[in-house]
Each structure stands twice: as structure tokens, then as C-alpha cells.
């Protein structure tokens, strides 16, 4: 439909009520999303918070050169990739397996109870969950008692003071907290599978594992693909709430993820421009990763987000 400019203006005025609903939202987005986006340019400046934005001098790629030659930056990249890879390689399938096994439970009531309980830790704040972990991993904590009781270790280990355990602590505590919640999406996908498929397979003599593999997994493959794309695209991110809670001065060597590096450099050391340069580089790479993961998934499995 083609309307003249004046016609559009008239309609616009006539729907002033609807417009007055939407425009505050757009203004909110311009302020809270677009202004920060625009301010990414301070990564190319020597910005000082005391001065008006555009009076700071442009310094080109100085901060970019500074961070690529900073060893601590590369350490944070290594830590981020390390933690993300463990989560991706070992952790990605755990909620899928949980959903598949839960689906095999025949009693509906038991199934629902397990499901409800398994979501619970997702709603507990990381302050509390992290506090429990810190206690368990410390001196005389549950983990030491358990491992010494089982004869896995001979004396107490202060797990959270030794950097070499940090990645595993984040992995296991995240698995403990989020498995049930991450499984919901698979459980929903499984619930949407046509039961006639299973009946037909059973008549053909397919056993439990064959049905699981050929029907259930094949049917939820698009869901798996989408979540895998998102996981790969998010490989430069980390669970900040978790790491911020579990990090300390002793394990910082392995705990400082890229997010935490940006926080430490920008808000603790006050190097605003420097941190913003890192942020800028990261968002470009993250966007690239999203397209790359999407493209490869499309080529390999035919499933993609866009």
C-alpha cells in the first residue's frame, strides 16, 4: 500500500495514542542501548570521565595495541576458552541425557516431581549457591570429607585456593545448578513428538535404545542444533555471576575470564578507554562467531537460526 506523505502524517496523528505507547520504548532503547553502543568509540580515545565526551583526544588503535601485547589479556582469553570448552564438550550433552532419561520414566507424577525439583537451583542466587560451594570446597568441607572417606585423597585440599581446580569448580557447580533448567527446552521438544512414531517403531521391533536414537534424538535435532549454535557463539562469554562469586586473589590466575578482565581493567583500575577497546573487539568477534556457527550448522545439519 502506497500512501502519500501527508496521508501518513494524518494517520500518524490519528493514532497518537498508539504512538505514545511505542515512542517512550524507542526513546528508552536509544538512551540505554544506542548511546552505550555509540560510546564504544571511547575505545579509540583517551577518555576521561571528568571531561565532556568529545573533548578527549583520539588515539587511534593505541589501546588495541596495548591489550594485544598484554599477557594478562591472553591469559583471560585462555581462561575463557578453557572454561567454555569444558562446558561445551563435557557439559552440552548433560541436559539432553537428563531429558531423555526423564522421558523414560513412566509414572507421570514421579516425572513431574523430579522435574520440579531439578529446576529449583536455577532460581537460587549465585551468592547463595556460590557460598555453599565455597564452604564445601574449603577446609573440613563436604568435598574433602567425601573424597577422604572414599580414599581418593589422603589429606585436605583447599580447592578454591589452588588455581588448577578453578575451571572444574565452575563446570561442576554450573552443572549442579543449571542441568534441570537447561533440560526444559529438550523436555518440551520431546513432548511434542507424535506418539504414533513410537508405536510404529515398536511394532517394527525397535528396542528402547533404537527408539531413543532414531525417533527422539532425530526429532529434537533442530533444538539441539540451535542451542549448540548459541553455545558456540557464546564461547567468549562466561558466567559472570558465578565467577565473580568464586574468584579470589589466589585463584585469579585461572579465574580471570575476559568479562572479569574487562571489569578489573575498567572499573577496578579505572582504565575506561582500554577496557572499552577490549569490549569493542570482543563484540565484533562474538558477532562473527555467531554467523560462523550458524553457517556451519546450516551446511552440516541443515538447521540454523537465520
Amino acid at each position, binding site marked *: 500500500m502506497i500512501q502519500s506523505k501527508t496521508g501518513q502524517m494524518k494517520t500518524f496523528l490519528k493514532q497518537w495514542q498508539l504512538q505514545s505507547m511505542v515512542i517512550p520504548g524507542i526513546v528508552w532503547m536509544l538512551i540505554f542501548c544506542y548511546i552505550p553502543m555509540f560510546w564504544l568509540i571511547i575505545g579509540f580515545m583517551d577518555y576521561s570521565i571528568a571531561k565532556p565526551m568529545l573533548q578527549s583526544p583520539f588515539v587511534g588503535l593505541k589501546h588495541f595495541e596495548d591489550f594485544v601485547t598484554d599477557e594478562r589479556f591472553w591469559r583471560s582469553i585462555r581462561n575463557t576458552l578453557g572454561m567454555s570448552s569444558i562446558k561445551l564438550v563435557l557439559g552440552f550433552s548433560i541436559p539432553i541425557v537428563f531429558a531423555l*532419561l526423564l522421558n523414560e520414566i513412566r509414572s507421570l507424577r514421579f516425572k513431574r516431581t*523430579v522435574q*520440579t525439583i531439578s529446576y529449583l*537451583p536455577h*532460581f537460587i542466587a549465585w551468592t547463595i549457591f*556460590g557460598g555453599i560451594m565455597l564452604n564445601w570446597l574449603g577446609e573440613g568441607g563436604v568435598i574433602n570429607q567425601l573424597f577422604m572417606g572414599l580414599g581418593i585423597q589422603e589429606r585436605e585440599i583447599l580447592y578454591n585456593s589452588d588455581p588448577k581446580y578453578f575451571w572444574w569448580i565452575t563446570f561442576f557447580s554450573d552443572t549442579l545448578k543449571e542441568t534441570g533448567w537447561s533440560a526444559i527446552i529438550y523436555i518440551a521438544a520431546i513432548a511434542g513428538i507424535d506418539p504414533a512414531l513410537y508405536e510404529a517403531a515398536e511394532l517394527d521391533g525397535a528396542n528402547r535404545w533404537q527408539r531413543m536414537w532414531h525417533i527422539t534424538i532425530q526429532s529434537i535435532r533442530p533444538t539441539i542444533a540451535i542451542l549448540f549454535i548459541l553455545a558456540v557463539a557464546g564461547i567468549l562469554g562466561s558466567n559472570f555471576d558465578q565467577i565473580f562469586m568464586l574468584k579470589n586473589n589466589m585463584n585469579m590466575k585461572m579465574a580471570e575470564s575476559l568479562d572479569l578482565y574487562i571489569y578489573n581493567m575498567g572499573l577496578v583500575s579505572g582504565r575506561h578507554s582500554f577496557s572499552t577497546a577490549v569490549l569493542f573487539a570482543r563484540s565484533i568477534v562474538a558477532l562473527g562467531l555467531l554467523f560462523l556457527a550458524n553457517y556451519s550448522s546450516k551446511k552440516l545439519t541443515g538447521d540454523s537460526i537465520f
Partner: protein
Amino acid sequence: MNTRRIRRFGMFEVVNTVLMIAVCFITLYPMWFVFANSLNSPEHATLGTVNWIPKAISFDSYRVVFSNENMMNGFYITTMRTVIGTAAHVLFTAIVAYGLSKTNLIGRKIYMKIALITMLFSGGLIPTFILMTKLGLYDNFWVFIIPAMYTFFNMVIFMSFFRTIPDSLEESAKVDGASDYGVLFRIVMPNSMAVIATISLFSAVYHWNDYYQGVIYIRTQELLPLQTMLFKIIAENSMSFMQQQAMAQFGARLPGNSIKFASMMVATLPILLFYPFIQRYLVKGVMIGAIKG
């Protein structure tokens, strides 16, 4: 052959059931651990934490938490933040979503593009921090509310829900002379209670559990939410203010750990109490999100 098959299935069923019970146990145990230790009596708590049952039940650590002015102020800030923040988020996001759900809205395409780009790019921590400072939101209660008033994701959920409400309902109200706002508040919102409940709950859980905004933006003690105080107590081990009070109240016999556990319990209790009633709404929300996504 047939009996073997049945037996094998039986075996699987047993193992699987035991596994699921184990999952439930592992999930519930951390909370039980906090609960048991928060009740453990001071004399026994100095000997270390208990794994299952408190050796002697005592409410002393709760007394310290509940009579601590700072903690109670944190509780108040968190409650205010949760109530105001949730109301603001739901109202603001729903109103924007209703406007955008009208296909005849002039400029809709541009508005949607503006909204969509916020999903792909963002300024991130430092530019956002500078913005808050310039807006005067640093060390200000409203830093909890205003930046959290809108999310694209929830807007889309509202929008797609509003589309399912039959046009005839809205039309008849319009014929009776209702304005767009009248239609939204008297027809559309009352018919969307399920989605409003879901989004309110997610927003409330976020506001209740968030500690990070308080760490970054708040300096004044009186504005710290409960979770930020907990973060300081647990991760930074700065609980001198409570220990001093505990010393005054109970002598030196109340160890720091019991107070920590009691504080954790107080901060989680509202979630644990509401959880059985709200969990189905929360799950529903994910389903809506999953279908749209």
C-alpha cells in the same frame, strides 16, 4: 526371549528411577545443608559444619540477622526493588508491546528494526557504566529500576500473546467509545493474565537474586540490596559489622559461619516458599520463549 526382554526393561527402569532419585537428592542437598547449618547451635558450630542434622537446634544466628539494622535495611531495599522493578518492567514492556503489535502502526518497520538491533549489538559494561554516571543513576536506587524496565525478549513474548486476542473483542470496545489505552487496560491486559504472571515472576526473581548491579553502582550502605550484602559477607568475607553485633548479643560464642548460613537462608526463604506455587508459570514462560525463539 519374551521374559528376557521384560527383565531387561525392568532393570533399566530400576536403574533409571534410582538415578532420578539421586538427581533430586543432589539438587535438594545444598539447600538442606544451608538450612541445617543455620540452625546449628553456636557451641557445635565452632566444631565445623554439620552434613545432615544440626547437633542442637538454636535460633541465635537468626536473631543476629533479624536484629541487624544493615541486614534488615538490605531486605527492605531488595523488597522495594523487586516490587517497583517488576511493576515497572511489566507495565512498560507490555505497553510498548501492545503498540508494536498493531500492524497498521505508522513507522512500525523502523521501530522493529531499532528494537532488533539491540539484540545483536550492545555497548557493554564500560559505556553503560559511564551512561549511568552521566544520568545521575550512580549510587541511586533507580539504577535498579529504570535500566531493567524493558527487555526485547519479554516484549516479543507480550507482543505475540497480544496478537492471539481476538480482534472482535477490541473492536467492540472501540465501538463503545474506548480509547486505545482503555482497550489495553480493560480488555487486553485482563485477558493476558497468564503471560503477565509469567513475566512478572521472571522479573521478580531477577530483582530478588541480582547482586551485581549493587556491586557496580551502589556505594551508600543504606542502598545496598540484600544479595549484594551477602556477596560481601561470603565472597569478600567482610562481616565485621555483624560479628560485632553478635559479640555484643551473645558474647564470642557465635561463630561467623552460622551467621553466614542464617543470612543465606533469610535471602532464599521467599524464593523457596513461593517456588512450589510459581514454578509452573516459570516453566510456561520458557515454553513460550522457546516456541518464539
